[in-house]
């Protein structure tokens, strides 16, 4: 069963403070708590890592992993590999636009496909020169 654990720093300190006592009374329970703490840390880790994986970038931009590798190989996306080998590491900062555009837009009324086409095809303002 996958559990999405999100703990605050305060939660973590509180749990770690009682962990020795739990370990003395119930080693099994202490092991479970330790596992949960590690799971929580793993969930939080991507948010603080300065690098994103090829897969993360691909998901953010809704493209395939191979497309991201192509962009890196062409020099369009900055990336490096630890010690010159291993997986490509891409600065997380490249995801800024994807993150910004993943937020909800200001609400607008629903347009039918025909209305959208008409708006996109119509001439510009007469003053836009």
């Amino acid at each position, binding site marked *: 069963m996958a559990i999405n654990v999100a703990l605050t720093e305060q939660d973590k300190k509180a749990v770690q403070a009682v962990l020795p006592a739990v370990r003395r009374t119930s080693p099994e329970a202490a092991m479970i708590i330790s596992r949960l703490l590690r799971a929580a840390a793993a969930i939080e880790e991507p948010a603080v890592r300065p690098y994103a994986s090829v897969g993360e970038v691909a998901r953010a931009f*809704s493209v395939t992993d191979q*497309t991201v590798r192509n962009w890196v190989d062409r020099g369009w996306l900055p990336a490096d590999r630890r010690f010159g080998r291993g997986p490509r590491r891409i600065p997380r900062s490249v995801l800024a636009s994807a993150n910004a*555009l993943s937020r909800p837009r*200001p609400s*607008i009324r629903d347009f039918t496909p025909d209305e959208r086409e008409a*708006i996109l*095809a119509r001439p510009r*303002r007469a003053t836009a*020169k």
Partner: protein
Amino acid sequence: MTKPRPIVVIDTSVFLKDAMSPIHRGAASQILAILPAIATIVMSDEIRQEILEKFSEILGWTDKQVLTTYGPVLEAAIWVIPVPEQPWHRKVVHDDEDDTMLVRTAEAVFTEAPDRIEAAQLRFVVSENKRHLKPGTSYASFLCVTSHGLLEAIG
């Protein structure tokens, strides 16, 4: 071998298509997310002004809402002053005088950022207005494409 980043001029219609899309997952939304990361976006005050005016007129957005939503796209851009209009500019855009600002903005890169334009092998004007900027036509080595066409070209 490292290739310089593509140079892309984005038309207002691409921003509009993204905003009007119910789930913002179409090609227009995709390229607005991707381009700041992998391309050199070229903007001019004329294009920016048109984006603000169209969004206010059609969608009722404030300038602040537009700039907040599309901030990363505008911030990533290089800004140029479009070249003055010449008679031949209109031929490219099928005689719509207002569409010339896109090709005049594209042409300005040759004088304002010559190093980038010389290096870049891929140069695009991306628009969803297929009537005035027919996909497949080109001007000053800039190829007119739709968002979908651009995705295919850079994939």
